[in-house]
């Protein structure tokens, strides 16, 4: 409890735009804070009154169920109020700009924005225009930092339980449509800062040239990557982003790149299988693999809530620092 109050004081940023901009210490601070929110023995995630009276606005310009719901649940676990704003029902269809939309919502009394937007760079753009925290829930193809964080948290969890102190030297493969993936970019930034070896693997046309400059390795040979990978994180082909210019069909992807039990025979027996979701069963991942003991896909989702709690807590709690005392941060039920 006091521990949480200390953590909040260590966080100094208004916004969370991407993992590229965070230091290793900042990333570990978020992950350690998430630990504090972990499920109690009755398996329910702790509810904490820290953000009572605060309003978190989910500003989603792109479709999402899992991320917006995950943030909403996280906010409510912190006792904040949540407002969901989706563009189909909004004045954006009447031509209102992003900045005007946000300022109008702010005028109603919002304390933070969680935004997903189709334009890369939109999160920092909004952050520069408003005084409240902006949490990037995905900006175009640039970053999806909370996904990166929850993936890293999950990896850290698994390997801690196997006795590994940290992620140094761990081989993490990220597979699929890297070109269009903000999840791949965020994962890579975070993992590299924590000392892991990251390889992007996939068809040539789906891996942008020059991406090695991030510090990743690139491969088009899935089998050779599988042999040495400790973790494989699978992405889906994003057909909604003109994938057809780059790749013929789901069937071809599945037969050449799909991960199934047969394929995994050459991998380490305890290779960790991850996927940010939603999964396309039978395309990038077989049902058997998705449901196998190696898969941590559902843990990723659970971890997503506590990681997002940590992010909301640290960014929004910053301005409430004075109001924290141990009485406000009680264990278990409200």
């Amino acid at each position: 409890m006091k521990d949480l109050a200390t953590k909040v004081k260590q966080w100094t940023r208004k916004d969370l735009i991407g993992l590229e901009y965070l230091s290793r210490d900042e990333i570990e601070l978020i992950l350690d804070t998430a630990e504090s929110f972990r499920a109690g023995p009755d398996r329910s995630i702790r509810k904490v009154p820290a953000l009572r009276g605060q309003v978190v606005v989910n500003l989603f310009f792109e479709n999402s169920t899992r991320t917006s719901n995950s943030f909403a649940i996280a906010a409510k676990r912190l006792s904040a109020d949540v407002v969901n704003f989706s563009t189909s029902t909004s004045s954006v269809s009447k031509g209102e700009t992003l900045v005007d939309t946000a300022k109008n919502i702010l005028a109603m009394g919002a304390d933070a924005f969680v935004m997903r937007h189709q334009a890369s760079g939109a999160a920092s753009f909004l952050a520069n225009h408003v005084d409240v925290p902006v949490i990037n829930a995905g900006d175009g193809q640039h970053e999806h930092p909370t996904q990166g964080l929850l993936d890293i948290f999950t990896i850290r969890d698994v390997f801690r339980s196997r006795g590994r102190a940290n992620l140094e030297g761990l081989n993490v493969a990220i597979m699929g449509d890297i070109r269009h993936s903000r999840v791949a970019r965020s994962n890579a930034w975070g993992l590299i800062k924590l000392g892991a070896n990251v390889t992007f693997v996939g068809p040539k046309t789906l891996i942008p040239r020059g991406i090695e400059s991030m510090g990743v390795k690139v491969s088009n040979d899935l089998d050779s990557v599988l042999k040495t990978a400790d973790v494989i994180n699978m992405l889906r082909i994003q057909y909604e982003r003109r994938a057809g210019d780059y790749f013929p069909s789901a069937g071809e992807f599945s037969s050449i790149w799909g991960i199934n039990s047969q394929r995994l025979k050459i991998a380490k027996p305890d290779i960790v299988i991850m996927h940010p979701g939603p999964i396309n069963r039978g395309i990038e991942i077989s049902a058997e693999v998705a449901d196998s003991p190696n898969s941590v896909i559902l843990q990723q989702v659970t971890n997503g809530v506590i990681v997002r709690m940590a992010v909301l807590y640290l960014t929004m709690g910053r301005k409430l620092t004075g109001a924290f005392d141990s009485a406000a941060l009680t264990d278990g039920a409200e």
Partner: protein
Amino acid sequence: MSNSDIILKNGVIVDCETNNESRQDVRISRATGLVIEIGSNLSGTEIIDCAGLHILPGWIDLRAQFNDPGKASRESILNGAKAAAHGGLTAVAARADTTPPVDNIASVSYVLQQSALAGGARVYPTGTITKKAEGKELAEIGRMTQAGAVGFTDGERTLQSAVLLHSAIEYASMFNKVIFDVPQNPELSDESLMHQGAMSAKLGMKGLPPVAEVIQIGRDSRLADSAGGRLHLTPVTLHDSIKIVRSAKQHNARVTADTSPLHLVLTDESLATYDTVFKVFPPLRTVKDSNALKAAYKEGVIDCIVSHHSPFTAEETDVEFLYAPFGNSTIETLVGVVLDVFYHEMNMPLIEIARRQSLLTRDILGVPGGGFKPGAPADFTIVNLDKEWTVDVRKFKSKGKNCALDGKRLRGGPVYAVIGGQLHSSICSE
């Protein structure tokens, strides 16, 4: 306005026609707009002290978007002409892809009328290559030339149809007029937001592959060769394009090329913050490319530097990068960047730089200018070679403040523009 003669006193005249630099006075008639005499110790009532300054033939800019008719809130011809003079330029060719586009003689006349009213740099109209700039049928190139159009351009993208481009170049050659071409393959460049490279990969934005420019220069210069006419590539931005341009010029001396001030001094690294002021088309490239462009200008493969002035309102640029327009307000930076990069950094002779930016551009358009002889039009760009100054968009006369060079320190800049005998103060006169 006074109608007496002006004496430009004690400046160094850089005469590109006689290949001669000398300290002389110049007497100019405001009434006729012509040079009266060149000599020493000239006297008169209105003396402009040009000690420490160089008097160059008037610089002519080949490509600026004044958005007039259509979106005068971005600039207008009246204001653009003044901004150009403030930038030290004596003439500008205005882009034809306005709203509506300049594809008929009435629109050509409109631009000329506005230019005459503006009292700034001469604004020459260009016409579109195709009707409405739609890329489907030839526009009235002949009649527009007769009405005063100085060249032809469809705007921001290359003409997709090889048949039409070939035809346009051939047809325009009958009138000795140039076709301006932005050489980027349309399919490869579709929806791109920046240069394709390590930066675009990191930033998660669709990149324009370099090959799009290289193959288009290849195609379009060969078409010009076959058509027997004049083609001006505007702009060239890549080191890989330079050898193609060089080889094209060997086949066909009537291919010319330019690049923009931004492509000389900025790279795609600037886009790290997603600041829309760096969003231009073709996009900012890499250090290797800007170094190659500088060398290519010195060599003569790149003939001239052209502003590519494209101003936008603050509302239009203060949006997400994806939705921001492409373009920069550069007309007041052209002279300064050229002097800083080529006179100071690349050690090129001033007389050669001046020739490229005045006589050569004059000949591409087929307009008057460039001389110091008595009776010549009094169009001069007067510069201070050593003045150190900082680009400040708040001092721009252009309505567009979207300039990626804001804050940049330059050495050398324009002090006056003399246009038709009228003296205008330029950005370095303060």
